[in-house]
C-alpha cells in the first residue's frame, strides 16, 4: 500500500483521539489519551523517513506525560458541572472553525504536491553527498544542526535553559514544605 494510505489512516486515528482527550471528564484518562496524538506523530515521522525525529518525539512525549501526571496526581479534584451558557459558545465556535476550514481549502491548492518538494536550499546539502564530504559525518541532519546551523542550536539551548529556570523559580517561591525539606537534607 502506498504511504499516503497509511498516513491518512493514522491521521484519522489521531483526530479521533484528540477529540476524546479534550472531552473526557476524568483527568487522568485525558492525560493518557493525549499520548495517542504524540505517539501517532512519532509513527507518522517514521513513515515520512525521519528516524531522528521519531526517536526524539517519542522520548519527549513520554517525558511530558510523566510531568503532567506527576504534577496533577495529588490534587483533590472537583468536577466542574456544565453551565447552560457554555453549550451555545461551543456550538458557535465549531461553526466558525468549520467556516475557516471551508474558506481555506483554496489555499491548499497552491501548495506543492505531496511527494515533490522544491528543495532549493537543500540541493547544496544532498547533491553528490556534498555535506558528508565537507563535514565527514554520515548523518546529514546532525551535520546541519551542529555544523552549518550551530547558532540555532545555541538559541535552542538558551530557550530550554530559561524555561527550566523559570519553572524552578515558580516552584520555589515561598514553598514552605518543599524548601524546608530540601534544607534539612
Amino acid at each position: 500500500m502506498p504511504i499516503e494510505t497509511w498516513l491518512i489512516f493514522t491521521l484519522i486515528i489521531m483526530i479521533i483521539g484528540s477529540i476524546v482527550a479534550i472531552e473526557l471528564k476524568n483527568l487522568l484518562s485525558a492525560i493518557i489519551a493525549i499520548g495517542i496524538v504524540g505517539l501517532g506523530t512519532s509513527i507518522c515521522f517514521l513513515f515520512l523517513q525521519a528516524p531522528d525525529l521519531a526517536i526524539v518525539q517519542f522520548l519527549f512525549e513520554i517525558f511530558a506525560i510523566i510531568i503532567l501526571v506527576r504534577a496533577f496526581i495529588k490534587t483533590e479534584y472537583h468536577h466542574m458541572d456544565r453551565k447552560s451558557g457554555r453549550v451555545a459558545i461551543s456550538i458557535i465556535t465549531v461553526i466558525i472553525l468549520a467556516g475557516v476550514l471551508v474558506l481555506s481549502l483554496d489555499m491548499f491548492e497552491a501548495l506543492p504536491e505531496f511527494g515533490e518538494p522544491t528543495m532549493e536550499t537543500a540541493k547544496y546539502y544532498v547533491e553528490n553527498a556534498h555535506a558528508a564530504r565537507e563535514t565527514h559525518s554520515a548523518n546529514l541532519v546532525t551535520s546541519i544542526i551542529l555544523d552549518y546551523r550551530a547558532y540555532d542550536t545555541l538559541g535552542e539551548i538558551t530557550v530550554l535553559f530559561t524555561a527550566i529556570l523559570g519553572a524552578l523559580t515558580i516552584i520555589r517561591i515561598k514553598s514552605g514544605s518543599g524548601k524546608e525539606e530540601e534544607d534539612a537534607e
Partner: protein
Amino acid sequence: MIIYVLCFVLFLVGLYGVLTKRDLIKIILSLSIMEYSANLFLILFAYKKDAVFAILSKGENPVMVDPLPQALVLTSIVIELGITAMLVALAIRLYQKYNTFDITKIRRLSG
C-alpha cells in the same frame, strides 16, 4: 492534498480546546495538540516519493528526503517540552493560591 487538510483539522481541534474549555489542564493539553500538528505539517513538506532517510551508508548514493525541515523541527520539539514544564509549574502555583483550576473563578477572586 487531503493529507494537508487532515493535518489542519487536527490543528483546529486543538484550537477549539483552547477557546472553549474552562479547565486549565484541558487548555494545556489542547496547546500540546496544536504543537504536534504544526510539527507534522512541516515534515509533510519534506517527503520525496520513493526516497530514503538522510543518512549515508557505505558505497551507496540514493535519492534522499529533504533534511532541512527535519533539522528545524528537531529544535521545535525540544522547545515544546520546556513550554509544557513551565505551564505545569504555573498551574500548580495557581492551584495553591486559588484552590481551583477553573479559569472563570480565578479571574474573580482577588489575590
